[in-house]
């Protein structure tokens, strides 16, 4: 069972080469008698070989009834996904399995990602028009519904399963149709309801001492924003419009009333950005989260935030584009639009998360920069980070950065207040409504330096344009230098950003294990980059930049530092696999 599960999903991960194992497979998930004795369930261990966690805890449990759940939940790893047929959780079945309360309701599964699907109902509905199929027969097909569903979740090709079903039930056309209908219904449900392969494993760093918990990127981002709110004393105001995969952050934060977190589902992404910007003008921590299509729509408003010089955090959970693309698949396709996706000269800082747990630090860092420099900041996450989880070491609260809103409270010129006077960080004062005497008006028209009055003066425009750019450049002064993870004698560097961190480390480690000499550096700040970036890159004979896009960071480093960086790309809606990247590095070492 376990075995089949693993074979199924290992195969899923590499795709294609698993056809052999398929035929016996559905049989394995035939519905159980429902007692602990005759349990059937199957567990999927979805992991590319390299990033297997120590100990073979499965990551996904598909439980067709309470008994199956009870028997197998113990083995499932924390943070894993539990996919249940909720129709089977009747009082009666619960009793049979020896559950006092319904585990789907009583919160006992809080540590897992619970996905409830009415598999029986849907299977029956899907098969009702088929001649000569009783609801009983139909119900039997629900395993095929489950197979269809996980086939969707793990992007398995359907044709093979379909052929197999057709062969297997060649004799019984009705049953065959029912099973096909069920399989398709399951697959389509996954697609329609945009269910994810909810869980990937990322190997944790060699565990430092400390208290750990499992978090996925969405939760870590939410916690980071809440921490930033507590640290800065700024009320957190998230305005978003639902979009896969960013909706989860809206869902997550909407539960944290206790921290005074305000979430608002806006009428669209443009409104969401403007509402968050309004909240920022009102003196709160304005955040808006979206994915590619929504980022496009926010462009004009982000440009306004650049002109207003107000703190605003824009989170883009990247997904496969262009256009609607593949909404549930991962991609690093939005770096260049984050850099340049606004008309005119409108630079802003960009931060990117590297691992599920690091999303916490990245969120804090985005807030720190936004508040300190009074600027919109784009935080780049992606589908892979949002839905992956890893053991996360709880930070000590004292290690968290202090974030001081430093609101303006006094006039800053005799007899008045000028909103565009700058401090040593080139940041302007943040004077919030309610502060007597500091009334001021700001807008998107070019402003006169210092006074902030509308100005069409040519030199002033050039000065302000350069000031806005210089301010963003200044952020580099407050961030750590780019460090390479080195081995002696290496003259090749792998430079990664975002969620490619984990696989780049793994690939580099693999290359080294077999004697290859290669270093690794990772960028958490994409704009500005650490001050020493150019110098570091030039210290190597070769720089390799792996990205799950057509090569975006590589364009920036080539333009900025004139290094002949080499691009390794994958655009399949999937993360790199260590073996793929290892291969690519080897070729370039030769």
């Amino acid at each position, binding site marked *: 069972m376990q075995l089949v599960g693993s074979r199924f999903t290992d195969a899923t991960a590499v795709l294609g080469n698993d056809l052999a194992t398929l035929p016996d497979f559905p049989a394995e998930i035939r519905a159980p008698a429902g007692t602990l004795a005759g349990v059937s369930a199957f567990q999927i261990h979805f992991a590319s070989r390299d990033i297997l966690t120590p100990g073979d805890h499965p990551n996904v449990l598909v439980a067709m009834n309470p008994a199956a759940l009870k028997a197998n939940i113990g083995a499932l790893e924390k943070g894993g996904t539990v996919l249940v047929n909720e129709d089977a959780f009747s009082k009666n079945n619960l009793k049979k399995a020896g559950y006092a309360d319904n585990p789907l309701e009583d919160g006992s599964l809080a540590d897992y990602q619970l996905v409830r699907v009415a598999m029986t109902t849907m299977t029956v509905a899907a098969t009702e028009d088929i001649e000569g199929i009783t609801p009983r027969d139909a119900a039997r097909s629900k395993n095929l519904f489950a197979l269809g569903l996980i086939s969707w979740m793990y992007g398995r090709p359907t044709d093979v399963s379909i052929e197999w079903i057709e062969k297997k039930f060649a004799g019984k056309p009705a049953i065959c149709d029912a099973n096909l209908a069920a399989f398709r219904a399951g697959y389509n449900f996954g697609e329609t309801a945009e269910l994810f392969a909810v869980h990937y494993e990322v190997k944790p760093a060699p565990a430092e001492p400390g208290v750990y918990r499992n978090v996925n990127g969405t939760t870590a981002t939410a916690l980071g924003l809440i921490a930033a709110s507590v640290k800065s004393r700024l009320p957190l105001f998230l305005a978003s419009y639902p979009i896969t995969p960013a909706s989860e952050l809206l869902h997550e934060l909407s539960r944290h009333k206790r*921290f005074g977190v305000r979430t608002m589902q*806006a009428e669209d992404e443009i*409104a969401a950005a*403007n509402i968050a910007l309004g909240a920022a003008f*009102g003196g709160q921590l304005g955040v808006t989260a979206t994915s590619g299509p929504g980022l496009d729509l926010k462009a004009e408003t982000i440009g306004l935030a650049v002109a207003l010089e107000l703190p605003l955090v824009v989170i883009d959970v990247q997904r496969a584009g262009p256009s609607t693309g593949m909404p549930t698949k991962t991609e690093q396709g939005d770096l260049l639009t984050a850099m340049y996706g606004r008309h005119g000269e409108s630079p802003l800082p960009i931060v990117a998360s590297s691992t599920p747990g690091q999303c916490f630090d990245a969120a804090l860092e985005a807030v720190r920069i936004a508040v300190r420099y009074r600027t919109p900041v784009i935080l780049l996450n992606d589908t892979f980070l949002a839905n992956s989880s890893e053991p996360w*070491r709880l*930070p000590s609260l004292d290690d968290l950065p202090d974030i001081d809103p430093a609101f303006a409270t006094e006039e800053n010129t005799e007899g008045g207040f000028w909103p565009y006077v700058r401090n040593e960080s080139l940041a302007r004062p943040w004077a919030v409504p309610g502060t007597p005497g500091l009334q001021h008006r700001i807008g998107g028209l070019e402003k006169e330096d210092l006074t902030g009055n509308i100005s069409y003066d040519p030199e002033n425009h050039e000065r302000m344009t350069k000031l806005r750019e210089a301010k963003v450049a200044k952020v580099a002064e407050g961030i750590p230098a780019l460090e390479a993870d080195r081995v002696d004698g290496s003259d090749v560097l792998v430079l990664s950003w975002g969620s490619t961190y984990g696989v780049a480390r793994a690939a580099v480690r693999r290359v080294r294990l077999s004697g290859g000499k290669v270093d690794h550096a990772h960028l958490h700040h994409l704009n500005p980059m650490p001050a020493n970036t150019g110098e570091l890159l030039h210290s190597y004979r070769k720089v390799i930049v792996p990205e799950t896009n057509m090569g975006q960071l590589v364009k920036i480093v080539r333009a900025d530092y004139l290094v002949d960086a080499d691009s390794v790309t994958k655009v399949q809606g999937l993360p790199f696999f260590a073996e793929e990247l290892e291969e690519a590095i080897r070729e370039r070492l030769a």
Partner: protein
Amino acid sequence: MTQQVNGHGANGGSPLPTFTKKDFSSDQETRWCPGCGDYAILATVQSLMPELGVPPERTVFVSGIGCAGRFVYYMDTYGVHGIHGRAPAIATGIAVARPDLSVWVVTGDGDSLSIGGNHLIHALRRNVPLKILLFNNQIYGLTKGQYSPTSEQGKVTKSTPFGSQDHPFNPVALALGAEASFVARTVDVDRDHVADTLRAAATHPGSSFVEIYQNCNVFNDGAFDTVREKGLREANQIRLVHGEPIRFGRELERGVARGDDGRLQIVDVGEVGEDAVLVHDAERLEPTLAFELAHLAERPTGPTPIGVFRSVVRPTYAEALGRELAEAHQTADEAALGELLAAGDTWTVS
């Protein structure tokens, strides 16, 4: 209710200093064309503000792009001159974040009904505490005279040399269709009427929507003469007053009554008798009467209702929740944060 929201009277209990028009007037030079209707509205608003008992620092004006959008620069309050069409969204963020503020939106017919239509109807539906002033000049002023969603069909403009093809919106009707709780209309130069209307709008809990007929003397001069010019307006302004019979004309000789077919019609009071005249009920819960009155005149070219069409009290957006969150934020300290981070299942590596 207006005690807590809209910034009214909210001054930490301490007695309000008294303010003057000057306190609400910025030092910026007004830059509208000489003769523009916007001047009259600005003057009225600046004089009205001190009355409202909200200090300048707790008053915020938000605008979009357009001539109307310049308004914010002339008020010595907090202000955001946003981007085209988005003022209701920016203002929503401010008002929801800061219920202690009095938030005003100044917008044009293109800004709020063309590019900004979606944000307008959603703000009204949610009943966010905003006072939305729509300066309707039935034209795009700032961009030099293209037709707008309120221009009459067939209008010849720079972008429609052969006449526009669009059937226009009736802003009051659109607002009512969008569930607006307060809907009114007034005329730029009619200072007292503008003041009375805005006074009512200011104290209404939730969104108040006020259409102000505003003359653009450069690109659409005279669009509102019928209800704006001496000699004409007396006969054509149907001034709605809650609880009073709807009568108009120099001697109030005309009125509005419901015919046997159930439809509203304009009648000669002498003929039908005073009792037949419809009594205005702005506080009627369902918006149907207000909607009927909005359609009494599709365009301001004949007798046209002005004043408050509808004013009903319903919960403002997230009001109670807002108070709850504000308190929660006060008490959420690092200890609480620590618990949150350590929530769920943890293990220790030593």
